[in-house]
């Protein structure tokens, strides 16, 4: 039957169509992975909390798994990168140092922040003479590529006893608490490597800023430059037994642009006071600046995030309600007054000038984290998702207001990848930012 032949042909065509032929990858792909003139076979990440994956006020397993160096290393595998080890906390101790989460919201929309610390890796505490108490964590032994140590300053990298003062560093070292004398710079260069990222220097100014200018002091500019040169020249040798390494360094973000300093503002404090009973007529919020008498706050004075949940503003006192009277101003530790802001900005600018000149002199790639944070912090749409510096809702900063969300770290990873590709002629594929989360809501 002639018609049967036609039915069969059409059926065959239809089946052919069903089975066929998605558009090929070549028809849409623009990236062919290529290592350019760099060697990514052993990549190490040198840095502080940002490198370790610290988030939500703690170092914990989920944060470690979303560290930007791990993301970069995954992408480097397409261009000859090797395995990449992180000092993961055990699954049974996945809360690590403990971290913060949102337990709910108050009627006024502010978050109720709670501590997650049921499965921490805390193994004890030790008192170091002349320093104080150090919390100790379960030791990590094994390969290491991510050398991020929360809290470390550039000023610490050649300080031999540092392993006794920082529990996050102590946990990576073989010796027991109090007996360590391995300089961080020696530790990270003990094995050969071919490529490094170094993002250090943030903590050299961060402690001063987050303490409202009280307590910590910025690392002197001259010391910073000398140590940065030393770190870079040492890392370029590629470690003990290495044959030289290429690398990428990053600038320091303007810490006063983080959610830590931009969430509690003069306007938000005044709005809360105006809404409280008897507060409608309040015109000024008084602060204690670093120098001089108490004075009314201006928009140029920045308040730190913890002031918002401290419950102090307007608290009754014989000297006058807290923050509303010149005789009972907001304490200096909660305020980075405009003079202190100027000091922070001056140091950040100086540090970044050093980082740029050392990177240029040593022919390294440079990731401008300061520019990146400004770009995203002021609001940017990423694949349809709005990212901004807004606390909790901005998807960029984690609950501590300084460290990043997994999405923020993914954006950071792409910043590094783009900088590496631009410098070394490589084509490391970027990370899909949309695969990573922001702050978890209850």
């Amino acid at each position, binding site marked *: 039957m002639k018609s049967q032949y036609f039915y069969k042909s059409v059926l065959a065509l239809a089946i052919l169509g069903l089975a066929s032929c998605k558009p090929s990858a070549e028809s849409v792909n623009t990236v062919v992975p290529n290592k350019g003139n760099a060697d990514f076979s052993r990549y190490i990440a040198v840095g502080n909390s940002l490198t370790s994956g610290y988030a939500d006020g703690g170092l914990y397993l989920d944060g470690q798994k979303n560290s930007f160096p791990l993301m970069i290393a995954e992408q480097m595998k397409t261009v000859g990168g090797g395995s990449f080890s992180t000092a993961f906390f055990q699954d049974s101790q996945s809360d690590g140092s403990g971290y913060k989460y949102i337990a709910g919201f108050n009627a006024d929309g502010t978050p109720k922040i709670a501590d997650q610390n049921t499965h921490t890796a805390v193994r004890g505490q030790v008192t170091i003479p002349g320093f104080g108490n150090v919390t100790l964590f379960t030791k990590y032994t094994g390969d290491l590529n991510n050398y991020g140590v929360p809290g470390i300053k550039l000023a610490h990298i050649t300080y031999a006893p540092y392993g006794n003062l920082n529990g996050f560093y102590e946990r990576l070292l073989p010796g027991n608490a109090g007996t360590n004398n391995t300089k961080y710079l020696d530790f990270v260069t003990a094995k050969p490597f071919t490529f490094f990222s170094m993002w250090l220097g943030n903590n050299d100014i961060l402690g001063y800023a987050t303490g409202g200018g009280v307590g910590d002091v910025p690392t002197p500019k001259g010391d910073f430059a000398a140590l940065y040169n030393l770190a870079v020249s040492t890392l370029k040798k590629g470690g003990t037994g290495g044959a030289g390494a290429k690398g990428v360094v990053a600038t320091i973000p303007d810490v006063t642009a983080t959610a830590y300093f931009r969430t509690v503002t003069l306007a938000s404090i005044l709005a809360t006071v105006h809404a409280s009973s008897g507060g409608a007529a309040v015109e000024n919020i008084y602060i204690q600046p670093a120098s001089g008498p108490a004075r009314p706050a201006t928009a140029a004075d920045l308040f730190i995030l913890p002031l918002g949940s401290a419950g102090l503003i307007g608290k009754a006192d014989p000297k006058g309600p807290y923050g509303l009277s010149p005789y009972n101003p907001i304490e200096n530790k909660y305020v980075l007054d405009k003079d202190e802001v100027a000091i922070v900005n001056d140091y950040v600018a100086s540090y970044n000038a050093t980082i740029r000149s050392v990177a240029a002199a040593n022919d390294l790639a440079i990731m401008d984290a300061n520019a990146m944070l400004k770009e995203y912090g002021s609001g940017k749409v990423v*694949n349809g998702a709005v990212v901004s510096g807004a606390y909790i809702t901005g998807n960029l900063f984690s609950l501590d207001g300084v460290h990043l969300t997994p999405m923020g770290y993914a954006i950071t990873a792409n910043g590094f990848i783009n900088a590496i590709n631009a410098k070394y002629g490589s084509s490391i*594929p970027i990370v899909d930012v949309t695969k990573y989360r922001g702050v978890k809501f209850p």
Partner: protein
Amino acid sequence: MKKILLSFLMVIPVWGFSQSFQVNLQGQKQTAMGGAGTGVAMDEASVFFNPGAVSFLKQNGVQGGVNGIMLKTAFSQTGSNLTEHNQNKLPTPFAAYAVFGSPENRLRFGIGVYTPFGGAMHWDPNWTGKYAVTSLDLQAIYIQPTLSLKISDNIGIGGGLVYSLGKVDLQRAIPITLNNGESSTAQLKGTSKDFGWNAGIYVKTLSGISIGLTHRSKVNATVKDGDANFNIPDALRSTFPTKFNATLPLPATSTLGFGFYPSEKTTIALDINWVQWHVYKDLSFDYDNNARIPDTHSPRNYKDAATFRLGIENKANSFLALRAGIGYALTPVNDGYVTPEVPDANRLLLSAGIGLKPSERFGVDFSFLYENVLARSGTNIETGLSGTFKTVAYIPGVALSYKF
């Protein structure tokens, strides 16, 4: 016979593409001829292609047809080495027509039920563009009663009222992280009922060439009180909307068509469509609760665009007709406005088909249409989604017809 036709009408989920979300699968003979058919009095599908030509049909008849659309889209984000594909769906748009009245009379009646707009695009729920869209199901079924009048032996006019039944289901992820670490999601779902019209004129010139000119009006598919279903953190639920209003303009289409008859057995049809896409300025959703999310106005800024269609039919014998066609559709989407629910670009259409007539009254027509949408790279100005889309479509179809 009626049962068979009814069964086609039951195949309700109906979607496809031809130019952006316009579907051009309204007759198997015409589809096999590159989608041309406005300037020829081919069959009952003239109810859609040119109501003016209906009065020139030599026989009354009824037909029903269906297509299966295999749409394959690939996307690669700029800077990524990964390729993402849309999910396999098989939308089945249908078209059914009937023409009544005495062929000797000047006045004829027709009715058509067809799907001129639709789309079914499904991506992985966690794909790169999830915050733009994860799936879109869109459909407009037009029901069109038609009158056609032969005002002279050479000129026919016709027109019909269009009753449009629309359905939309749009889903996307929202960049708010649930407690389990996944993204929140939104589903916007609604229906519309609107009116429009279709009119045409058909002229048989003395030189033997036939000419058709038609216009199908714009229909504003208006969704009122559609369901806005949000899967969001419980703490935020009271701040999110539950209902929305939206309007999607389904653009007017004007077509100039020609029919050439080089021999008794051969028909050549040439159509030029002009689709007034400029009416699609934005996709806006008006929510009933703006405590957390404002009403959205996503710019589309489409431009009017033409499609060129050329087809040929050769009646090999009384049993068999062979058809082939080619077309080229210009995209209405400007650079910077390409979206993953309709990753449109200029496209090449190639078609072929056969018609069988086992008996004097009964006919079966098969068509196969291949669409090659050119690869298109760019960055969407609203979402920042940057990358390259490439789409091909394989569309087989079949129709049964009965003359009376």
